[in-house]
């Protein structure tokens, strides 16, 4: 499944729980690539750091702080697929893995979807953006430098994420 449109359409057809599971795969993949994968760490602390990072990105990129709609992990996943080329392969793999799932005797995931959305987005975006500070006398300004080959449309990703940032339960669990 390499066609971009097909991939995005597949993401939109997922159940919320399935889309969330794909986001978790993306997060693990991103952390492994960055060499920052850690187990047994404090989820609350991580999510709080990731949230602060994304809010800063949204502020510096001057993205309006108005959520366009409801928090939807499927929508966020579709936007990530379209806007971030590097995410396409792991999403494709994760979708294949979803098809392999069998019945398990567990309950629904105990982690808040918002936390997963926030940390996944932060993990994907963090390597692709840098903050540059400029000083003009007493005045300091911060500019956001985005790797355009890595993120085609940062504003769209942040916009899809805003409902999670503003409305979601970011408490981790």
């Amino acid at each position, binding site marked *: 499944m390499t066609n971009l449109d097909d991939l995005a359409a597949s993401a939109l057809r997922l159940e919320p729980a399935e889309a969330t599971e794909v986001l978790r795969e993306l997060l693990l993949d991103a*952390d492994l690539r960055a060499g920052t994968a850690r*187990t047994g760490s404090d989820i609350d602390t991580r999510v709080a750091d990731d949230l602060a990072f994304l809010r800063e990105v949204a502020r510096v990129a001057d993205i309006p702080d108005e959520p366009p709609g409801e928090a939807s992990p499927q929508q966020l996943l579709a936007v990530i697929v379209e806007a971030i080329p590097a995410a396409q392969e792991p999403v494709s793999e*994760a979708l294949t893995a979803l098809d*392999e799932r069998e019945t*398990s*005797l*567990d309950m629904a995931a*105990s*982690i808040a979807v918002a936390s997963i959305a926030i940390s996944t987005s932060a993990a994907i975006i963090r390597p692709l953006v840098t903050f540059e500070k400029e000083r003009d006398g007493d005045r300091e300004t911060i500019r956001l430098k985005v790797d355009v080959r890595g993120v085609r449309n940062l504003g769209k990703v942040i916009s899809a994420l805003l409902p999670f940032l503003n409305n979601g339960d970011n408490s981790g669990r």
Partner: protein
Amino acid sequence: MGRLLGPYTDPSLPGVVVHIVEVEQASGPRHMAIVTSDEAPWLTADQKSGMFDRLLAFESSIDNDDDRRVWLFVEGSAPDGETRSLESAWLDLPDLGSPQDTAAVVLDAVGGPVDLAAEAHGILLGERTAFLLVGDFHGERRMACLVAQSEPRPPCVEGLMSRWYFRRVLRQGTAGFAGGPSVPVWIHRTDSNGLDALSVGVLPLVAYVPTAQTPDGIAAEIMTDSLVTVPTRDGVLRIGAARPGGVHPVVGHRHGSTLEIIGALEAGTDPETFFRNQPNDKTTALTYFGQAVGYLQLGRPRLAFRAYYFYLRFARFRRKKAVREAVELGFEVLRQLDEAQEADYVEWIGGAIADLAYRHGLDEQGSTALWHAGVASSSLGWSDRCIMHFERALASRKPTRHQRARLQMSYGLCLLGFCAGRELDAPLDDRHRGYVAEATNQLRLAVEGYRRIRGERAEWALHSLALELARAADLRGEHGAAAEQLRRLAERPVIARDLALFSTAVVYSLLALRTLSENDDAERQAYLRYCLKLAEGDTIFPSASITGLFHLLLGDALAETGHRGEALGMYGFAHYFQSVGFDTISNALGPDRPLDGWLAIDTIDRILGSAGHAGVSAAPAAMCLADNAKSRFFRRDLGLQLDGLRAPYQGVTLVLDREIRRNLLVRDVDQRIILAEQQWHAEQQIGAREAAAPPRSATGYLVQALHDAAEGDGPATGAELTPATLADLWGRLSEGSALVSLYAGRSRTTITVQTGPGAAPVFHELPVEASALQRIATGLQEHFSGTGLYAKINPKRPSRYDALFWQPFAELGTLLAPVADMLVNRDLVVVSAHGAWHHLPLHALLLPALWRHGLPGPALCYTPSFGLQRLLLARGDTQSWGAFTDMAVTSAPSRTDDVGQFRDAHDRICASLSAATPRLRTAFGVEATKEQFHERSAAQVHHVLAHGIHRAGPDVMRSGLLLSDGDRLPELAGDDDHALPALDLLLRTGIAEHLTVQACSLGRTMVAESDELWGFHRAALGSGARSVLAPLWDINLESSTVLLETFYRHWLHEKMDKHRAWCAAQFAMHQGEYGAAWTHPYHWAAFTMVGV
């Protein structure tokens, strides 16, 4: 000679024929009746008359006859089922009417058909059966249940006798109790075979609201549950149990909570009236007041506490004089409890006195009571309660100047006490630094206060405060200044003369010097020399915590200088004083009850660390001490349960006692009340002397045995592990077993291995930090159960992320190789884990290492502690489960599951069990209800396939299974109505001998202080299971079904021992018999067998 009249019949009652026999007596004519099932009485009138003559003569002789009483002979069923039998019965008439009128009353008393709908068999002081009769009473379907000797069969449960008996019970029940008409079942319990039902008099009846839906279920429930449940307007269920002697213990029970015993109901008192009157029952209050006084005079403070507890519940305080009396009595009880070192009870009663006193304006008494409660909380290591009590006391309106200063001083002292020990193992965290800051503030305020007070006590307090302020400075990091200040203070004559002050100065100095010398070799050597010199003496100080800390510090110094044997002795003393502190804790330590201060210091890790170097003689004692430090409250409560099984009391008293004991296993209940009630109850049954004799603590013996100074094998009874009880455990295990005990200290895990009853325990150290173990365990759960942010494992490609999640754990396998070498050729390895090891599949490392040595390798089962395992096996001696062939499978998919897949798994499990038993009872889908689960409690093997909810944190005992509500399947999203929480298992009686829980993560536990384990396991073992097989993480339906099918095939078809069968199933999957993907530990190592 009498006249035979009739037959009389009622067209609406086919099969009931009444003949009246009219006999002439001195007082006039009397009517007797014969009730048979056909119209051809087979006795002559003379014969009938003769029967009645003999009956009247007998009943008159025992003063049991009355002119208005009609004696009946009712046809019953003879044992051979062919001949007829006649049983005597009776009914009372208001007036003697015509024979026809009497016949009508008799026909009404016998009434319509009654079915013997169910029988349930069990053991209640001999073999008993619950006979459940179902019939119509005043147009409503009702039930009556006779619980009687199984043999000979009671005459009143069959034939026409059953109709008369049924309506007799219903008439008495509904007439004698305001809520009677709505009671679905009336239970009549008797120690005989029910003949008492035929005699005149009031039957001891119990009103009962069953939870089971079917007659079989209700009868089974009645056999295992004895209590009256009556719904009342406020949604509260009141439960009482009728005792044949007349006094009714009365128990209050709220929905979803556990028992709370609130009083005793005198014979003849209507339960509704009793409930309506409390808490305004002056007579009962006075009774308890008197009891409290009496027990104080006898020097029995815990029983005085119980009486005072009930007194407060029943008394209504309208006048200040009554309040003062109550407060004074409370302080008397408190003082005795304090002298008996019952700190946990002092904490309760201090709070209760304060509530009462403040409510009625007695602020001074309130503050004093809270001071006691605060100090008691401190000695128990409960910082949150301690802070609450002191803050409340200091915020009250008008403590006196002296009171305020004393409160501030004690508050500061307690806060500093909570830091003791923290600094020995790790730097203070933010919370404890906060304690030091607040302590400094309170101590300074106390100094100001005491300076305005004259007298010796104030002078003493100022000296003590100077020591505490120096200690606070040390904890703030001012070690040099603190050490110097403490040195100067110790030289003051007034301090040097006072052992309490001087010992405090010495220990505080050692703590400061120890930290001060950490980075200075010369200082360190001086400090160590000082410690070695101190170690030459034999010192006991007035304060247990100061004495314990002193020995601990000297032990550390001795260990550091290579004097391992002497260090072990010092640690032993420290541990002894610590266990004295633990003995004062009644409420089991839950996940939300952290211990602070002196009790939180890990003395066992130090003992094990030194025992490995101290020679063979210390090893058994060290092993026992480590074991006794695990699951101490679970072990205590199971020990009490076992005592109850060994010495069963009679009838419902047994059941009530069992309920009390079971409640000890439930964390929601204030166990202080339950323990006091249990003690009182035991004394009522078996006499004060026997009940009051406390079990001899083994700690003193074991500490002596550490350095070969103890004789014999220690106490052979009691719940603790000693060499003697360890030998008993070995006697109960199969030949070729081995014991492996883990103890996770801060920086190492000590593994103790004993390979046979005569073998010396061998210690092996794993240099792995407890925090690292916890991270590994959390990582495994994140991946296997999806509890983290990362993706959950893909069951078809489980090894994809092994490098991140599994490898850190697998690396411990190398360190475990020497342990595995010791276990080669063993048949069964019983593992007692500790700390984070409870969350880790040790078997996934050990078993493959052992399988490499050749087959068959040993099987591996877990137990919370060896002492507990011994009790579990001993319980099996007295506890009866169902027949081996009695098995059950309960399966409940959720609404969103693929029901076909679930059905397939259910059918496969059923097939693997059904070949071994003709009595497999199954329930699938909506039939798989909580009630149905409980009805299977008598089974020998019960397999449950359902979704599981593991709740981490304080709610862990609400972890459980999702089952149907009878109408609908459960939903996955936290559906409490469908949940069968662990708590429910404990509140019910009985469970299968072996329980397999094929439900995600229900093998997970929460580990509280002192390694107290909480979760589904605890509930299943506590309510009677011998072994529980449950998964450590979220499992895959397909692979877990195959694993368990294989287990059952080996166990039930091929008749392998259970542990061997389980090991063979794990081995087959690990070896790839079911495909390469399932060789991953996620599949084959998911389950742990707890219990043997």
